Structures are given as C-alpha cells and as structure tokens.
C-alpha cells in the first residue's frame, strides 16, 4: 500500500518535471517554436474559415429543407365531417409529421399579404373567395415529401397535393452534393494541415535528434524522452490555435452584425455568434492540439531506436 503511494507521488512529480521541461524547451528553441506555431496558425485559419462557411451552408440547407411542405387542396364539396375524416386519413400516413388546417379565408389573407401593394387587388375576392380550404402537411423526413404527396393525392376530397415538384428534388440533390463536396474538402484540408504542421514539427525535432540520442545514452527511457516532446507539441498546437480563434471571432462577429438584420424574415439564416463561435474555437483548439501532439510523437518515434 505504502509502496503504491510512493510510486504515484513519483509519477506526478515526474509529470511536473516533464511539463516544466516542455515549457523551457519552447522558450529555448525560439525560432523553431515560431516556425511550428506559424504553420499551425496559417492552416487553422484556413480550416477555420472553411469550417465556418460549411456550417452556415449546412444551416441554410436545413432551413430550406424544413420549409418544404405539402399543400393539400380540399374539394369544396367536402363538409366539415369529410374534412375531419380526411385529416385523420392524412395523419395516418406513416411519413406524415403534422397536418395543419388553413381555411380559404386565411389563404386569401396570406396571399394578399405576400403580394404587398399589388395584393390589394385581390381584396375584391373577399366576397366570393375562389380558393380552397387547405391542409398544410409536413413530413417527418423532408426526403419523403414526394412519396407522401402521391399517397395524399389519391385520397377522397383531395383536388391536388402540391409540393413544388421538381424544385424540391433539385434542391435535395444540390444540398446532398454540396454536403458531400464540403466533407471531402474539409477532410482534404485537414490532411494537408496535418501534413504541413507535422512536417514543420518534424524539422524542429530532427534538429534535436542528437539530443535524443544523448538522452538515451545517459539512461533515459523512451517514455521519459517522449513526454516533454508530447507536451511541447500540445502547447505548440494550442498556441497556434489562438490567433485563428481571435481572427475568426472578430470576423464572424462583424459578418453576423452586418448580415443578420438583412436576413430577417428571409428563409435563409446564418448561425448566431453565440454559441457557434465558441464551438468553432473548441474545434480549432482540439485540432491544433491533436495535430501538434501527433506531429511530435510521430517525429520523436523515429529517433528512439538508438
């Protein structure tokens, strides 16, 4: 029991030693530190900007997707009871999420509103409304819109079920394609970043390969040598993430302040500053740290076989 405690205490002390060592090394290898941190900074700015754009495109795509709905025109011959029956029939279709009734008076009002000044002309119809009562149907999954619309179209008292045929399919294809392209681009950028940064870190470590050899000759185990390098890589990665985070935060704040008011009432929306920028910052720090650690661990490994 006693022994175990002693061992744990030693380990914590050694970890402290490694941390101190890694900080000292960052200071002593001034230019090399600068080179590594710059490489991390440049790549993380690229990754960060791209990430922000991708996430916002995704948000736009989601908004558009959610906006897709089926308008079910109800036959004028249907009485209240028939309408109720139709509603429950639509609700029973497995893909359907919600069914909302909109009377022809409401429909006309919406139409007049959406036309603005020109809409006033439709006021003439208030006495003799030519529109139908409508059920507005949303599906659980936007992709099922077409299937659900077809089923609804076959029901009794339905004159037509409209969902923007063609446009919706094209939209879905576009969203799908842009998501895939985005994922590929982000992955590509990520690997470029990993390659670039780990190469820079590798150069800084190659410069110290004699040191590593000496450490082994003096009796340092591989783990003992590896730890300070591991921590150094971690600090370098985190240091490199600071500037990109500041730049992206400022840029996004300004972009949001500028764009958000213009987009009010529009179906396109961008992600609000809070919490999005904090999430991006988290991702960038994590990426910086991972790349830094990975780069240094991989490079040191090469020289530990003395």
């Amino acid at each position, binding site marked *: 029991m006693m022994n175990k405690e002693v061992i744990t205490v*030693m380990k914590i002390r050694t970890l402290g*030693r490694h941390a101190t060592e890694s900080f000292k090394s960052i200071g002593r290898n001034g230019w090399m530190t600068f080179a590594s941190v710059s490489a991390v900074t440049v790549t993380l700015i690229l990754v960060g900007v791209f990430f922000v754009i991708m996430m916002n495109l995704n948000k736009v795509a989601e908004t558009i997707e959610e906006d897709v709905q089926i308008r079910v025109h109800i036959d004028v011959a249907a009485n209240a009871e028939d309408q109720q029956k139709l509603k429950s029939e639509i609700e029973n279709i497995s893909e359907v999420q919600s069914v909302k009734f909109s009377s022809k008076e409401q429909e006309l009002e919406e139409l007049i509103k959406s036309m603005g000044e020109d809409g006033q002309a439709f006021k003439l119809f208030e006495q003799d409304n030519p529109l139908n009562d409508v059920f507005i149907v949303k599906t659980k999954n936007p992709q099922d819109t077409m299937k659900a619309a077809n089923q609804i179209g076959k029901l009794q008292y339905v004159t037509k079920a409209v969902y923007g045929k063609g446009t919706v399919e094209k939209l879905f294809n576009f969203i799908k394609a842009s998501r895939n392209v985005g994922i590929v681009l982000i992955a590509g950028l990520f690997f470029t970043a990993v390659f670039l940064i780990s190469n820079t870190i590798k150069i800084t470590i190659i410069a110290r390969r004699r*040191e590593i050899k000496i450490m082994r000759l*003096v*009796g340092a185990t591989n783990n*003992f040598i590896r730890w300070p390098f591991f921590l150094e890589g971690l600090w370098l990665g985190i240091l490199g993430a600071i500037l990109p985070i500041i730049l992206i935060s400022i840029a996004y704040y300004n972009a949001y302040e500028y764009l958000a008011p213009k987009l009010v009432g529009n179906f396109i929306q961008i992600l609000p500053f809070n919490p999005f920028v904090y999430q991006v910052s988290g991702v960038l720090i994590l990426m910086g740290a991972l790349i830094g650690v990975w780069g240094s661990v991989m490079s040191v490994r090469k020289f530990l076989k003395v």
Partner: protein
Amino acid sequence: MIEMQDVFKKYPNGVTAINGIDVRINQGEFVYVVGPSGAGKSTFIKMMYREEVPTSGTITMNGVNVAKIKNKKVPIFRRNLGVVFQDFKLLPTKTVYENVAFALEVIEAQPKFIKKRVMEVLDLVNLKHKARMLPTELSGGEQQRVSIARSIVNSPKIVIADEPTGNLDPETSWEIMNIFEEINNRGTTIVMATHNREIVNTIKHRVIAIEAGKIARDEQRGDYGYEN
C-alpha cells in the same frame, strides 16, 4: 566486474572488428585500452555500454549479460554505468547543472537529493561556479569535466571513457586524468580507451592492447607501446 568470453563482432559490411576476445576486469581496476586506429578499440568499448552487440560470445557487466538486454531495457542498463565520450555529448540547450541533473532525473530521484548530489559532483570536477552556464559557454576541458560529472552522478561501479582526452590540449588532459584518478581512488572501475602515450606511460595502470580485433598485450602497469 567486467567479463568477456569468446567475443566476436562482425559488422554487416563484412568487417570483423573483434576476433575472439577473453578478458576479465575486476572491481576497482583502472585499465587503459590502447592500439592502432581501426584495431577494434572503439568496438570493444562500445560493446560494454551496448552501443554495439557482439555477434557471438558473452559480455557480463556487473552480472548482467549485455548481449541479452532488450532494446527497450538498454537505457535502464546504462544507468548503472558512467560513460564519457571524446565529443562530450552534452545537451546543448541545458545548463551545466541541468546536464548533470538529467542523469538523476531519469531515475526519478528526489529533487532535494538531485540538488545536493549534482552540486557535490560539480564540486569534485571544480565547476560549481559555472553551474548555470550553457555548454557552449565553456572550454573543451570544462565540457569534458561536465561530462565526467554526469557519468559519476549516479555513483556507478564502472565508468567507461572513450578517448576522453582526444579533443583536449595536453595541460587540460592532465586535469581530466586527475579527476579520473580521484574517481578510481574511490573504488570505481575505470576502462579508458586512449591514444595518449604520455598519460599511459606516466600514470601507470593495467594496459590492454588490441590489434586486429584480438588482445595483443595485457600487462599490469604496462606501457603505451606504440609510436604515436
């Protein structure tokens, strides 16, 4: 104690550096290893701290068969040895103090002990006042003294030195030899490969001469025996 039995070393390029060596060095001895360049001196020394592994035969250092130590365990084996090199092999970004302390840090010694012990050995090599300097700020002789301090800070039973005076002027070489004498007087075994004729002929110790990978001569209080 060091014991070699029927040791051969053939390099992958076909060169046979050690061609059948049997030798025994007792605790507390001071041994010079001499011989012409390319005779196998360096390989002989390097096998002792397992920089090289013999092709066949056994090398026992303090009861451990060096050839059988796994790569991973080599650093742990080296903690019980002190090694001094011709080119000092100091860590360039660490101060004199940190270089010496490093050998104790790797065995996770108590910080208090490290401080005390490092200052002790720096005192022994007369460098206490330069503890905070970097190796690049020191002369060759001073750097070698740091390297010696590092080699003995763990209190090893054996110190191996590969041409420790090879890069130093004669006067500094004598200083370094005095330190080795002092260490030997405290009971530490010293095995030193050297080309320094004057030192071998003046400070008399056992001399092992290696020629063409074999022991050509093994004399107590011997001479250098070669024209430099």
